[in-house]
């Protein structure tokens, strides 16, 4: 990738370039020695501890809340209801007509009505967390129960109870984004029409560190300081200031080390705002740390979707049309800032994926139910629609007698840029190459022979593939198309050199395991020709970082990294100008080199170190010409004004099904991925492996279930099966590199691909193994019970 404004000789072009190298993580020493600082590690003088009285009913009017006995429990300092705190509601909006989108207010603490089990009704503050829990026991809340709505079918049924009075038929979002003219005729004339009806289980993104916050009022700064584990610090600041009716400058959100997020922490939670309100009331620091029971049942959930999709094919297996109906169960409230539109809009816009689909019709709906609300979760809808697309191709291949890989080969996009039927322009990727290579790796390891041998022994061994691309690097334009009222996209970065020549860089993105401290330092170090140790990243502090949209949608290196790189380049330009002025020559006659600025003609003195330049810029600024300001800092903003970039991958899985137990055992996992320039390949591989583990978890294990009364049944790790090292296989990863040409790093996002590709590949592999039976499975999680039943069915005549 060449930037138009890149200096002709660039320090990064010298030997010792860090981009593309798996340099050791700068985060590791503190995290490995117990010196990481997570939110629960924060302790402030006089700090109190909060817990929440939570609704025990899924749907009901609050008849009364009596906290008298709570306040008498030893150790309890205070207890507040919504009425006590008088907070403004959290409301996320889309700029769509009322027929398409119904905004719903999410009160910080429930007023009048509760809409899911676990909804916070009151906050109890005590001298320690144990006493706060004692306090919860003494709360007396009476409800007039209402009939709960616990599935999307119930929600959409005529005459169903309404979760929000303003949302008729319990529908928060109902959009028909595309409807190609003549699509019905396409289906009528098609050689082959296949249908997939698919459901995916409700999941918990499940960061190992639960949510939490420590809030206090800082008298000296006249600020509320809210330490919280969030992926979106500036958006939390906005909501906190609005709910608490403070100027935004009077709120400082600080994010310490974070134990994962995966999307669950990219929305604003009610509890952190309530804890902040309690801290303001009491003028004492208040800590809230979510326990695992609450995290499993009452935090933001994800993924529960229902797809009803038909695809038309010609006799050669070319797809002719796609007709989709998507319903997402969003739970009780719209999350801020994304709204309940996040999942149906993602699915509707991007479902054709890597395939050349000529005709497309889609309806996407978000329904509200009496279940915990949902947030984006790693991959957002793509794990689901990719699964459906890949099932459609497998089914068509079977009907037409084609090889499962060959039918994909005939349909993947091979000419770029490609503008799809969904009006999205795809930048160059390696869709066909990754498919071919992935198939070859599986063949080279002899898995097809092993499958034949297994079949001869009556064992059920299956091989499954999935192909997908993943839009990342969404700029403002792409998010604006969704009509979000808060439009993420740009990021701002500042690079500052101090008097010793060391550099501090800020980013509005927020690492929660993705190694930003290392990769962002690699980018800056390369740009300026510095050693890695000379660069330090500041993130997650709204007072230190100008503005940013945090980390989600794999936007960190693509957008945030680009802002970082431009800011570093600007600082480099200033250093060159200073050196040129000191040498009484033109900036064009000097250039950055490793550790300083050199004269192109090599005349004496040929070189000034950054330390020397920094010393002059700050401590002897009288040496600078009038037109150069003292100090060394530069700020840059980066945004993308097209459809974003697309990383892509092909995954292959080999599974064996066990007839006696119904267990699905993964024997092999191969991933060929292309995320453009990999700043740190080891970090990219880590993202792939972790993502694949979460994808397998969704395919085979994890599900949040509710009973008919809306009571969640998985409230501990005894009931919610998170896979361990036993269930997650080693993964072979092969990288391809098609650089992004319109951002500054050449990188495409790498955070979500694993999670997107795994469910489809696993489901296809299971179905491949089930070929001797009459059964095809289209739902996840694939339970042992389902597999056992399929394998032990009497053959149908």
């Amino acid at each position, binding site marked *: 990738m060449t930037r138009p404004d890149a200096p002709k000789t660039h320090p990064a072009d010298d030997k010792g370039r860090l981009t593309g190298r*798996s340099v*050791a*993580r700068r*985060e*590791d*020493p503190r*995290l*490995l*020695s*117990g*010196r*990481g*600082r*997570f939110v*629960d*590690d924060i*302790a402030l003088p006089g700090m109190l501890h909060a817990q929440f009285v939570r609704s025990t009913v899924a749907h009901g009017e609050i008849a009364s809340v009596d906290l008298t006995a709570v306040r008498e429990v030893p150790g309890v300092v205070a207890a507040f209801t919504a009425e006590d705190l008088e907070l403004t509601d959290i409301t996320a909006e889309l700029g769509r007509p009322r027929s398409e989108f119904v905004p719903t207010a999410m009160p910080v603490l429930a007023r009048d009505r509760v809409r899911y089990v676990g909804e916070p009704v009151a906050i109890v503050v005590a001298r*320690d*967390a*144990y006493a706060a829990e004692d306090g919860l026991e003494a709360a007396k809340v009476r409800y007039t129960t209402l009939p709960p709505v616990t599935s999307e079918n119930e929600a959409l049924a005529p005459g169903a109870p309404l979760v929000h009075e303003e949302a008729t038929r319990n529908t928060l979002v109902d959009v028909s984004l595309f409807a190609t003219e003549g699509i019905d005729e396409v289906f009528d004339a098609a050689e082959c029409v296949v249908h997939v009806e698919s459901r995916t289980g409700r999941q918990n993104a*499940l*960061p*190992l*560190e*639960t949510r939490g916050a420590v809030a206090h009022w800082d008298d000296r700064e006249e600020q509320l300081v809210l330490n919280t584990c969030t992926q979106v610090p500036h958006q939390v600041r906005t909501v906190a200031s609005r709910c608490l009716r403070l100027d935004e400058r009077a709120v400082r959100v600080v994010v310490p*080390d*974070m*134990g*994962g997020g*995966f999307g669950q922490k990219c929305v604003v939670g009610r509890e952190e705002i309530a804890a902040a309100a309690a801290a303001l009331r009491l003028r004492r620091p208040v800590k809230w*740390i979510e*326990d*695992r029971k609450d995290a499993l049942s009452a935090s933001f959930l994800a993924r529960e979707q229902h797809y009803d999709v038909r695809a038309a094919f010609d006799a050669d297996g070319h797809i002719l049309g796609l007709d989709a109906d998507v319903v997402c169960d969003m739970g009780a409230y719209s999350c801020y800032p994304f709204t309940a539109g996040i999942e149906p809009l993602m699915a509707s816009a991007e479902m054709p994926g890597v395939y050349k689909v000529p005709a497309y019709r889609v309806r996407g709906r978000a329904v509200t139910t009496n279940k915990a609300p949902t947030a984006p979760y790693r991959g957002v809808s793509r794990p689901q629609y990719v699964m459906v697309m890949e099932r459609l191709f497998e089914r068509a291949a079977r009907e037409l007698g084609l090889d499962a890989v060959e039918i994909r080969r005939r349909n993947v996009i091979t000419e770029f840029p490609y503008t799809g039927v969904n009006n999205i322009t795809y930048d160059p990727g390696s869709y066909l190459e990754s498919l071919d290579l992935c198939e070859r790796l599986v063949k080279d390891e002899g898995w097809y022979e092993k499958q034949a041998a297994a079949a001869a022994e009556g064992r059920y061994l299956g091989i499954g593939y999935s192909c997908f691309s993943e839009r990342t690097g969404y700029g403002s334009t792409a998010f604006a198309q969704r009509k979000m009222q808060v439009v993420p996209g740009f990021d701002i970065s500042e690079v500052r050199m101090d008097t010793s020549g060391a550099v501090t860089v800020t980013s509005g993105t927020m690492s*929660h*395991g*993705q*190694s930003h401290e290392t990769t962002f330092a690699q980018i800056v170090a390369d740009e300026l020709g510095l050693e890695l140790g000379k660069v330090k990243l500041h993130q997650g502090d709204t007072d230190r970082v100008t503005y940013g949209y945090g980390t989600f949608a794999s936007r960190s290196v693509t957008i945030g990294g680009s802002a970082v790189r431009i800011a570093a380049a600007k600082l480099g330009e200033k250093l060159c100008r200073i050196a040129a002025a000191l040498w009484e020559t033109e900036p064009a006659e000097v250039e950055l080199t490793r550790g300083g600025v050199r004269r192109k003609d090599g005349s004496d003195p040929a070189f000034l170190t950054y330390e020397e330049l920094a010393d002059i810029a700050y401590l002897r600024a009288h040496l600078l010409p009038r037109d150069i300001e003292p100090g060394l800092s530069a700020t840059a903003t980066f945004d993308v004004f097209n459809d974003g970039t697309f990383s892509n991958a092909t995954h292959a899985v080999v599974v064996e099904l066990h007839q006696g137990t119904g267990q699905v055992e993964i024997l092999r996992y191969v991933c060929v991925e292309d995320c453009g320039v990999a700043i740190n390949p*080891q*970090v990219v*591989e*880590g993202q792939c*492996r*972790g*993502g*694949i*583990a*979460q994808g397998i978890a969704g395919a085979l294990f994890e599900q949040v279930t509710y009973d008919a009364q809306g009571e969640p049944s998985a409230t*501990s*790790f*005894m009931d919610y099966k*998170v896979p*361990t*090292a*036993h269930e*997650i296989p*080693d*993964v072979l990863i092969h990288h391809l590199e098609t650089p992004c040409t319109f951002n500054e790093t050449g990188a495409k996002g790498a955070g979500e691909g*694993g999670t997107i590709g795994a469910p489809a590949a696993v489901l296809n592999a299971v179905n491949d193994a089930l070929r001797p039976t009459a059964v095809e499975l289209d739902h996840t999680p694939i339970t042992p019970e389902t597999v056992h039943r399929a394998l032990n069915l009497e053959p149908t005549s």
Partner: protein
Amino acid sequence: MTTTPDNLLLLTLNVNGEEHEVITEPRRTLVDVLRHDLRLTGTHVGCEHGICGACTVLVDDRPARACLMFAAQAEGARIRTVESLADPATGELNDLQRSFTEHHGLQCGFCTPGFLMLADGFLAERPEATKEEIREVVAANLCRCTGYQTIVEAIDSCATARRAGCAKTCTAIEETACS
């Protein structure tokens, strides 16, 4: 232990070779006392019901869930936490910690202290552990970031290096003995 008024206990805990006196309620868990009373915050809390293993510490050299023990139960035992692994004088990481960084065996780092203490206790007991045995032990704890592969590789690589180091020392001793 001594019982005080207000149902408080005076405990003496030996943590990382140091004696600590703590006044606490009998119901307080070991992990809360370590984290909040002794301010050894390296040990983390992930589930409070013994499944995730983020709170794993060594109690008399064996891995134990600090969320499933009352602090009072740990009196008289030798407790070791993640803070004990690096060189106390220089802060230099030990071989197991270095192996985790070399293999990218951590991402967010929240579960990491638990895995380190699990592995430290296990390798002390079974230095000859195979990679499969290591994988089996690693399955005791949950990680949400890595997919486990690099954790298993980090521990296996450390065990292999320790054995090679040991073999070298033994060979050297034998050679000396022979000469």
